[in-house]
């Protein structure tokens, strides 16, 4: 009688394990890719030293990075670095890469969280309203919002806001970190595009769902319009929305770089660009690998959450 439950639990466990193995493989491929990219694109020693450096300095760099060892040895060492999360010492900061990374990580997460909250808070209601009032002026307004959101790049938005809110009216601090006011512009600039993509997804899914038989049946049962939309229809929007939010979260970490640079936000993006500028090789490598790992973990959690939320999910994928 309860066989079906036990069976489902088994299926979920198998799914969990498969996803875990996939994530591990992906991480390995990621590490190998970075390793290959670094070694295949030329002698890091030349890249890493400033122009006009002496041969002695280059030899020193090669020695420091262990570039004189055989490739398999280098690879093994690199994998060990990845596994132990120890990427050595940053050239220009003199601190361990890992500690610098984890110092900056909370700032990045704060910014991304605010931006995500903004994009959902704007995108979901606007998407629902746009679908419910399909073809009316509110729908047009929402569609216009979506279009501008998709078309105005975040950094253009950031500079425009900066001009108006900081320079012209002095409402908000131009850059830096500190109070909640410092978060407003970076949050909107980063969340802007994602609000538009959320809006589009919610609108199109909602339109499909609202014309379905089960929504008709909910109305036939005498459910109020509010319950029909929020419980019966929106529940079906939630699943694709979660998967979009997961993808967006990952893209957002990426897009954050430019916003962080503009608003001098001490997150990972600006750290990376700084590292690139300083040719701080261990730091660049560490940030890329650790950010990638973070994204893989996030994807894994999203997959699990997805399986948990959607009763229909095809766990065999």
């Amino acid at each position, binding site marked *: *009688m*309860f066989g*079906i439950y036990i069976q489902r639990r088994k299926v979920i466990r198998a799914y969990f394990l498969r996803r875990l193995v996939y994530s591990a493989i992906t991480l390995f491929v990621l590490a190998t890719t970075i390793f290959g990219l670094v070694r295949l694109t030329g002698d890091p020693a030349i890249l890493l030293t400033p122009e006009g450096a002496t041969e002695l300095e280059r030899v020193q760099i090669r020695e420091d990075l262990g570039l004189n060892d055989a490739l398999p040895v280098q690879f093994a060492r690199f994998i060990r670095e990845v596994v132990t999360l120890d990427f050595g010492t940053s050239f220009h900061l003199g601190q361990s890469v890992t500690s610098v990374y984890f110092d900056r990580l909370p700032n990045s997460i704060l910014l991304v969280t605010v931006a995500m909250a903004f994009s959902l808070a704007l995108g979901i209601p606007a998407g629902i309203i746009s679908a419910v009032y399909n073809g009316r002026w509110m729908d047009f307004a929402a569609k216009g919002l979506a279009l501008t959101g998709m078309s105005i790049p975040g950094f253009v938005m950031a500079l425009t806001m900066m001009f108006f809110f900081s320079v012209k009216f002095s409402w908000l601090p131009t850059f830096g970190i500190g109070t909640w006011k410092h978060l407003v512009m970076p949050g909107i600039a980063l969340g802007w595009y994602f609000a538009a993509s959320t809006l589009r997804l919610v609108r199109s899914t909602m339109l499909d769902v609202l014309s*379905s*038989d*089960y*929504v*008709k*049946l*909910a*109305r*036939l*049962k*005498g*459910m*109020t*319009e509010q319950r029909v939309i929020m*419980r*019966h229809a929106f*529940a*079906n929007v*939630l*699943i694709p929305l979660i998967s979009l939010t997961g993808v967006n979260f990952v893209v957002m970490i990426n897009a954050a770089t430019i916003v962080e640079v503009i608003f001098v936000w001490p997150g990972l993006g600006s750290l990376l660009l700084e590292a690139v500028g300083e040719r701080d090789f261990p730091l660049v490598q560490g940030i890329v690998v650790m950010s990638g790992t973070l994204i893989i973990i996030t994807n894994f959690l999203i997959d699990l959450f997805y399986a948990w939320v*959607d*009763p*229909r999910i095809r766990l065999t994928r």
Partner: protein
Amino acid sequence: MTREILKVKDLATHYTGFGGSRVVKAVDEVSFSLEEGQTIGIVGESGCGKTTLCLSLVRLLAPGAQIVGGSIELNGRDILKLSQKEMVEVRGKEIAMILQDPMTSLNPVINIETQVGEAAFKHRGLRSSTLRERVRQLLEAVRIPSPDVRMQEFPHQMSGGMRQRIAGAVALSGEPGIIIADEPTTSLDVTIQAQYLDLLRRLQKDTGVGLIFVTHDLGIVAKMCDDVIVMYAGKTVEKGSVREIFNNPNHPYTSALIRSVPKLGSKDPLYRIEGQPPDLSNLPQGCSFASRCAIADDHCFEHEPPLIEVGPRRLAACWKIEENAASKEQA
């Protein structure tokens, strides 16, 4: 004499498109009434306005469709005079509906318990354990095995027949006086169809609910219904008790429908009605069935036949009622 619970009079529902330049008379002056425990069948080809009629009864028409005339008296009051807000209290409580396709009519992400219990929660004020008990009863009533387990599950875990039985439970949940079943067995397997019809009949006997059964299948009508309305191009063409209609059809369309039902053991080729039903936005002058009718003459093409009483509680709209009856006697 049982109580009359629904009285529909001259109901007309039109679709208007292209800024009112095109009017589709999907339902045109349809009248009928329904008593407690009675089953009325609405028969016709697809596109004759059956589904629009059903949706008019609960006032859930698609945008563009509008009830333009008539009255629907439900339990003594005209629901056409109610606001949409007040209609929310009518739907599910006084009149419920079973839709055609069980694969799409249940919400995929809400569990069965919630979907079945919703109407009882809203309209009958049932809560927590009483509500759960009620859901269990309803699922038992529609013959769902191990209801305690099943009510925690989701529609995708069930077969089509099971889902349609659950749709029945959903309809019964608010204890309505009337259930409209819009071709509820069309998408089911033949063996499951018969089971489902038996179930509906038994449920009707137990609860005394009035059934409006919409179908294109006269075999099902013969099995299920007390009275029949035959619709053609949005209009009633014949109305009467099942026995009379089958024994003595007065409208050539009805007799054509009856002849097109396959008979067991008969080797005769199946009769089929030639031609297509007319375009509802551009109805011909005269009788709308004339172009497909074997006995139509010039008069039929020019003048629309009125719906006249041809016997006790028996109506038909045809100029050739007498001829038709005579030809049948000959045969």
